[in-house]
């Protein structure tokens, strides 16, 4: 078992010294931004031009839905959100600290990417995981 939490997804990086962050890649040819690592660009087809890029922890809500029925053991309701990050990159995740009510959720609202334990979920070996969430940005 690992002695510290593992990243919930490969594009979440946990440096030994420093804060966790989301990593993307950017195409050196056309500038397209992708989540995670890749070798080639699926926008322009450029090969071997992808560079890692540290994605912003600030973004805005692009779209969402409110999940009322999910698989057994998953707490509902919750807000599934699509967030556009400042400087490029789109990420999906849970929007927390909001009422799950469409009247309380505004398109375009500024959000911060925050990092926390993955809702207590552990893998078969008992490892804990670190995940990310979106939280409305306080003015």
């Amino acid at each position, binding site marked *: 078992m690992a002695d510290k939490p*593992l990243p*919930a*997804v490969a594009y979440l990086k946990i440096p030994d010294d420093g804060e966790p962050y989301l990593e993307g890649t950017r195409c050196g040819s056309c500038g*397209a931004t*992708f*989540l995670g690592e890749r070798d080639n660009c*699926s*926008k322009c087809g450029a090969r071997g031009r992808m560079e890692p890029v540290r994605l912003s922890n600030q973004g805005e809500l*692009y*779209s*969402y*839905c*409110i*999940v*009322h*029925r*999910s*698989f057994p053991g*998953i*707490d*509902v309701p*919750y807000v*599934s*959100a*699509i967030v*556009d990050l400042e400087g490029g990159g*789109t*990420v*999906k*995740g*849970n929007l927390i600290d909001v009422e799950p009510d*469409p009247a309380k959720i505004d*398109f*375009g609202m500024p959000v911060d990417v925050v990092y926390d334990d*993955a*809702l207590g*979920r*552990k*893998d078969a070996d008992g490892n804990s*995981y670190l*995940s*990310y969430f979106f939280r409305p940005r306080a003015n």
Partner: protein
Amino acid sequence: MADAYIVGVDMIKFGRFPEKSVPQIGSEAALLALDDCGLSIQDMQALYCGNLGQASGMVGQRILQEIGQTGIPVVNVANACATGATAFREAWASVKADLYDIVLAVGVEQMGKGLLGGGGGSRGISKEGLLGSGTMPSVFAEAGMEHTRQYGTTFEQFAKVSVKNHHHSTMNPKAMYQIETPLETVMNAEMISYPNTKLMCSVNVDGSAAAVIASEKKARELGLMDRAVKVRASVLTSDPWQERDLVMPDVNTCTRKAAAAAYEMAGLGPDDIDLIELHDCFATAEILHYENLGLCGDGEAGRLIDDGDVALGGRVPVNVSGGLLSKGHPLGATGIANIYEVSTHLRGNAGQRQVEGARIGMTHVIGLGSACGIHILEAA
């Protein structure tokens, strides 16, 4: 290239048949389509079979083991919810390419109940409910909410799609359900993923549909032109790169590309279409496709459903079969079942739900991941 025609086409009544095998369910539609044109499996030169749940299970060959092992080539196709349309298109292409004179396309699916998508499969921990939701109701809810963001489309407008399609299905004996669902019933049904309630999600059913496609020469030889349906356009697209596509599947761009190509291939436009069977896997999706298929301008889809333009008797009736929302959505069969529906109207055989004077119709499916298949059909 010479034209290709649908000469036989049919579907079984959709339902739940846990006691039957997938090839048995597929065989029923295959035989119905052959009966529709008075031919036998001995007359078929190739079989194109669409099925998703047993994609590695040689379903096409097993259908022949049920109805006649003639040794013809069999191609098994899987392409998400575009599976049936893709099998049909491969069959059509083989006739257009003059490889064969007459071929059979079958789509079949046996479904479980419950949510689709959002499953695990990856190492580590489950991401469902941790990194948003990957279930199909959620993915299509988010696509609908993008339309709400852009144009202010309301929950009520999305719900009206379901009211309309359930109403249409009361006139379709082959639909899974024949029940009216008033607006309050749809909006007050169990919320699955806002804004999609349970009645705004397609029904998981078992089903099959099949079509016999022939060259014009063969159709004339067999004396089958009087009920033939001409395939004016067949188009398949995948999802072109879009800014958010890898995180938030984009069902719009691949549909718009396919629609533009289909209209060009057929040499006509949206105003020429008399009826459409489009991919209402969720009520939110149907709204998007009114604009994607050019039935109205961008931002006008809400008004289209409000005004009844897309209901039976309206300007361009959409999903008069009841659609996936009420007829049911057996994934691999859907793309051929909607070809059966349009063909039935073009032949003037749709009974109570007949679109009067229908000459040209369109079918549309989306397989998430993504694939879009569009066909334009015309009475011969």
